């Protein structure tokens, strides 16, 4: 894989991954830092493992390092509270007011934002990148069984949220 290919493929993916998973970081700077690290450490990549797993492990380490450096921590509680407010405001909208697609997207966005950091991360890695439980467990450094349980929980939460938001109007 060439440098330009990695850049073009992972620049947007990492941007969305960081944007939907973490708060309190400069996304653009972080993506550049991650891709620079990927480029520098490319010779250490073991092709026996998935490239996605490797790149997201680096991304996560970079984020954790930056939080450590700034002696900060993930602003989970305040962010979740803020997003819960946003979720309730979305609930008040009638489906007729906005287009279906936009409504669903906004709903999903609010749902994702209402999740704790860890679940948001798992959600992205599982539902977007379609990584296996084992691969996610390697990135997040947690047992595969826990990942599996969390994926199941997130899925249930998402279904419940969707049903509450859109009822039977939109079949899924």
């Amino acid at each position: 894989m060439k440098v330009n290919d990695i850049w073009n493929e992972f620049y947007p993916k990492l941007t969305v991954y960081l944007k939907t998973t973490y708060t309190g970081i400069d996304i653009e700077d972080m993506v550049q830092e991650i891709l620079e690290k990927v480029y520098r450490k490319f010779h250490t990549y073991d092709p026996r493992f998935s490239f996605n797993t490797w790149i997201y492990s680096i991304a996560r380490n970079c984020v954790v390092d930056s939080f450590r450096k700034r002696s900060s921590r993930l602003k989970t509680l305040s962010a979740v509270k803020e997003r819960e407010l946003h979720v309730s405001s979305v609930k008040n909208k009638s489906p007729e007011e906005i287009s279906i697609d936009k409504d669903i997207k906004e709903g999903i966005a609010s749902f994702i934002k209402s999740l704790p950091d860890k679940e948001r991360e798992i959600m992205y890695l599982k539902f977007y990148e379609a990584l296996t439980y084992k691969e996610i467990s390697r990135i997040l450094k947690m047992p595969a069984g826990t990942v599996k349980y969390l994926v199941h929980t997130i899925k249930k939460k998402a279904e419940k949220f969707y049903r509450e938001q859109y009822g039977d109007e939109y079949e899924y």
Partner: protein
Amino acid sequence: MNIEKIIHDYYQTEVDKIYVPPPALPKKGCKSIRNKVYNIGFAAALVLSGLIIVGHVDTPSSLSVRAAHFSEVHKTGEVLSEGLWKLNKLASISLISGGK
């Protein structure tokens, strides 16, 4: 349509919205070459300052001091040689004249 697909589509639209700037990665070897240049420069500066301290190399100010000193010495030498030449001349004159 299932919830997993809805979520996947949401992420996909977000990814598609991102503008990808041209790569801003460092060129291979650039950093290491730059570091080498810095290291060589630092080592050279260290050696030079060592030589200046032990006096093997002149700084511009010490060079001017040395030049002034040299000209002083040179002047003294000239004076001395001139004196000796005169003494010598006197001695030869006295020898020719038989000490008269």
